[in-house]
């Protein structure tokens, strides 16, 4: 009883704080200084049409590197935690009914399309909404579909780990090259900015997007894989 009353009281206080915030909220009519800088300098400094990607990969590229590192740590910890209850080879997934004609055939048909969409979203991150993280998540959804269609299937650990470490190394390497040949770590002007709005433009943003996408896709796939390889799955 006391517990429920306390929970209710806490939620009430929090809710009234939220309500006050909402009532007092006035949408800004002008961009603040940071946002205005990003908006006016996106074309000549970065050359990317999508301002969000320009901020994410160029102006705050170091934070994105940190974020990818956090994801890598997550994947590593998940596989460490779950490795103690790993199923013996060939044992997991055998206790389930087959996934059915519809899902297996649908997977075969959809997988190439999902991979294509993922590659498109990754490569066009500087032009349209999208980029490495979204494209990587789409690729990982393809991996999830494969696991659902055939639960006893095993991905190649080696391939996933190689893709992951190669793209991570290339990301850091590009950043270091920027220190040597351009303005600083992960500087965008390592490659020419090119024509504004073209696919091959905006310096190293498309390359970094693809690298992030591969890394994120591989990390999500390895998380899914370690969740799937447990004794009860």
């Amino acid at each position, binding site marked *: 009883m006391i517990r429920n009353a306390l929970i209710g009281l806490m939620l009430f206080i929090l809710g009234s704080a939220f309500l006050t915030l909402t009532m007092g909220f006035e949408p800004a009519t002008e*961009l603040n200084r940071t946002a205005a800088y990003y908006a006016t300098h996106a074309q000549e400094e970065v050359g990317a049409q999508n301002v969000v990607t320009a901020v994410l990969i160029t102006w705050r590229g170091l934070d994105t590197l940190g974020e990818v590192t956090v994801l890598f740590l997550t994947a590593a910890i998940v596989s460490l935690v779950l490795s103690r209850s790993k199923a013996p080879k060939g044992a997991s997934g055998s206790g389930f009914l087959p996934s059915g004609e519809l899902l297996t055939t649908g997977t075969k048909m959809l997988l190439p399309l999902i991979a294509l969409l993922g590659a498109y979203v990754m490569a066009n991150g500087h032009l349209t909404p999208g980029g490495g993280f979204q494209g990587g998540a789409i690729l990982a959804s393809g991996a999830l579909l494969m696991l659902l269609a055939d639960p006893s299937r095993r991905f190649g650990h080696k391939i996933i780990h190689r893709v992951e470490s190669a793209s991570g190394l290339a990301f850091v390497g590009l950043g270091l090259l920027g220190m040597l040949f351009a303005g600083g770590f992960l500087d965008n002007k390592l490659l020419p900015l090119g024509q504004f709005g073209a696919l091959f433009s905006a310096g190293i943003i498309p390359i970094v997007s693809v690298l992030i996408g591969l890394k994120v896709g591989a990390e999500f796939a390895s998380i899914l894989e370690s969740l799937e390889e447990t004794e009860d799955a």
Partner: protein
Amino acid sequence: MAQVSLLIGFTLILLGLYGALTNRDILRMIVSFTIADAGVNVVLVSVGYMAHRTAPILDSAVPAGQAAARIIDPVPQVLVLTAIVIGLGVTALMLAYAYRLFRLRGSLDISQFMDLKW
């Protein structure tokens, strides 16, 4: 408009917190945290909303010269992009720990785990 999306976001946060505090099942608590996480993201995005403006993409609709007067704030969107990815990582971690707890005790009831309770 911005008020409506703010209210929806705050409601999601409250719903998530309520679920996490009242449920005993660890899986349900994880789902509640995910809902609260989505609420935080909705709030952040709607703070960046500005009336009569368009998405922060400088295509033919937004000449680069007038960009500062035509687009909404890109910074909250970048933050939310980051927050979504990190939220997914946190959820995966919670699920992995929940699975290990289930293997150890054979139960997902939070009241069975008293080791850290004083």
